[in-house]
């Protein structure tokens, strides 16, 4: 298996492209949501794209990943099909889960995206089990588990990480700390002064933390963690701070509700990861205005085509509701 070089060699253009692509498709979902043709809850990652983009590029195509309810960008960054993601949100037969799952239940086994589910922390032990099987196969793969700051409040987080530490499993625990669980801030959920990665270090795994809105930092840290895991170093927990712009669930901004301040939002928005990184690459000459325009046109074309595919795809037949209950010969 070819491993990406760690640290220094950051694929800067690919990083920017991935971030802009994720921003574009998430904003397009938000823009079209009021048409009421995407008839399922959506949890958008607008503002958080940097982590997905960087980790997606750091992971090898053969690595495995699982995620939770806010999974569009994890799925896409791991290589999941954009047309099939959108078709799924539209409830279409061509959806990645054939319309059975919707936005919160995404899968693309062909690229190692083994599934996202809706119950907070529910896939943390599942990713750990992938790691157990990988280790028993003596494979160089890593299982990456994406989750948020609320998931570390669930019992199965501790149970799974504890087991991974006992067995030194090849698992990358990737925590995106966006400070809120729905409307509940960290201060009502975790004791003052807690730093999540420090708490997790007590479980016996390697930990690190960083600014999740710095894509190059995330890329380097994830790459280094993956090298260490593949070398048999056991599980790694990475915590990245970031910020979601839009409401917990749905397409709107919700700062008017009062659970967080407009000023806090504006502070994060002013240091937007996509715009900041774009400016940085322009200033340093890595990209030009011209190449940026071409990149944006390509992304818009991809997103537009993916929406067109989703909209044009047929719905499943009503009888399909009664399929896929069991696997194999146990099927009904």
């Amino acid at each position, binding site marked *: 298996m070819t491993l990406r070089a760690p640290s220094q060699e950051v694929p800067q253009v690919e990083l920017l492209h991935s971030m802009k692509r994720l921003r574009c498709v998430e904003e397009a979902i938000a823009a079209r949501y009021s048409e009421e043709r995407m008839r399922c809850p959506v949890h958008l990652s607008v503002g958080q794209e940097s982590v997905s983009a960087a980790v997606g590029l750091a992971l090898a195509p053969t690595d495995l990943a699982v995620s939770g309810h806010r999974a569009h960008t994890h799925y896409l960054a791991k290589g999941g099909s954009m047309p099939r993601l959108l078709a799924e949100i539209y409830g279409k037969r061509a959806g990645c889960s054939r319309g059975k799952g919707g936005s919160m239940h995404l899968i693309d086994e062909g690229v190692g995206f083994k599934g996202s589910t809706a119950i907070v922390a529910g896939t943390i032990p599942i990713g750990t*089990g992938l790691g157990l099987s990988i280790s028993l196969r003596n494979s160089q793969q890593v299982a990456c588990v994406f989750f948020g700051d609320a998931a570390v409040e669930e019992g199965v987080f501790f149970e799974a990480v504890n*087991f991974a530490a006992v067995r030194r499993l090849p698992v990358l625990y990737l925590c995106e700390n966006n400070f809120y669980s729905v409307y509940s801030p960290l201060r009502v959920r975790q004791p003052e002064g807690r730093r999540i990665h420090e708490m997790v270090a007590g479980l016996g795994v390697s930990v690190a933390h960083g600014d999740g809105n710095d894509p190059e930092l995330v890329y380097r840290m994830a790459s280094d963690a993956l090298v260490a895991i593949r070398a048999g170093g056991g599980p790694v927990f990475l915590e990245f701070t970031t910020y979601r712009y839009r409401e917990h669930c749905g397409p709107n901004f919700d700062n008017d509700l009062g659970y967080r301040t407009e000023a806090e939002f504006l502070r994060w928005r002013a240091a937007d990861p996509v715009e900041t990184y774009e400016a940085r690459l322009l200033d340093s000459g890595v990209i030009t205005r011209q190449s940026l325009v071409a990149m944006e046109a390509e992304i818009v074309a991809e997103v537009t085509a993916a929406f067109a595919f989703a909209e044009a795809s047929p719905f499943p037949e009503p009888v399909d509701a009664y399929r896929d209950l069991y696997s194999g010969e146990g099927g009904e």
Partner: protein
Amino acid sequence: MSRECTYADAVADATAVAMDLDPRVLCFGLGVDDPKRIFGTTAGLAERFGPLRVFDMPTSEAGMTGVAIGASLDGARCLMTHQRLDFFLLALDQIVNNAAKWQYMFGGQGSPVRIVVRLILGRGWGQGPTHSQNLQSWFAHIPGLKVVMPSSPADAKGLLVSALFDDNPVLVLEHRWLHQMRGEVPEGDYRVPLGKAALVTEGSDVTIVTMSYMTVEAIHALPFLHKAGISADVIDLRSIRPLDWDTVLHSVRKTGRLLAVDTASPMCSVASEIVATAACECFSHLKIPPRRITLPDYPVPTSPALTAGFYPRAEHIAVAVSEMLGREVDVRQIAAARKSPHDVPGDWFKGPF
């Protein structure tokens, strides 16, 4: 070829057969390699298959159920064991939201969830409110799960081997009072299909549908019914989900009388489902109202003074059937023939669990 052995031996045999046939079968759970080997049901496995495939685990029922699901998504087949079903309640999120849904919620695009969870049902010797629950109807309520309750050594092996090679999550509920039961068990790769009931005895007057340990009590009631001229179809369900409705309803249409015997309390029980479905599907064949025998609608108490009479036994089955047929059955000998105290399955059981 077959050999006589205990139910516990048969469980260990089934596990060894599956682990021999497929090197990706794993066996784990609290105590699977401890000195007592889960009442003997995991005897010999650790020595034969080694610590990578047979291993003890953290006291993390929920997390380790998720680990089993995840490992199976990568091609393993995982057998987990819990010494009491009650502890497995900590894992309901993983079993209901993940294992049971994985095929469906990804539209069949996910890998199969090949996990088997053995859940041991306690009874007697003061197992009490949280060590003796029979929650088969909870699990059977969940589309996507399979639930089996073997009642004989041969079925304990055959159903477990089938479960281990099924491509879906299967819960195997093992009654603690059956572990020392002896019987002929076929050797080698012996499988009993999931979803097929066993017609234990054939008769014409009444259909007795039962499961797990209550099959034993039903069999004990039969000679006393015969003396009164009553013959019964005794149907051991074996599988709770999928349930073999063809066998059950065919018998009810034949006898016109139904007694559903459950190991659990009555509300929303498997016995209730049997009665409901029989009433809906073959009402015109019923000569009299169906009846249920279940546990009382209470938690199970601990003191032997409180459990005496708490559990229905063969005499309750015999009395119910005799009332349904308007015949006299002398059941005094059933209890008189019982040598052990009421709260143990036999002299072999000295506690503590």
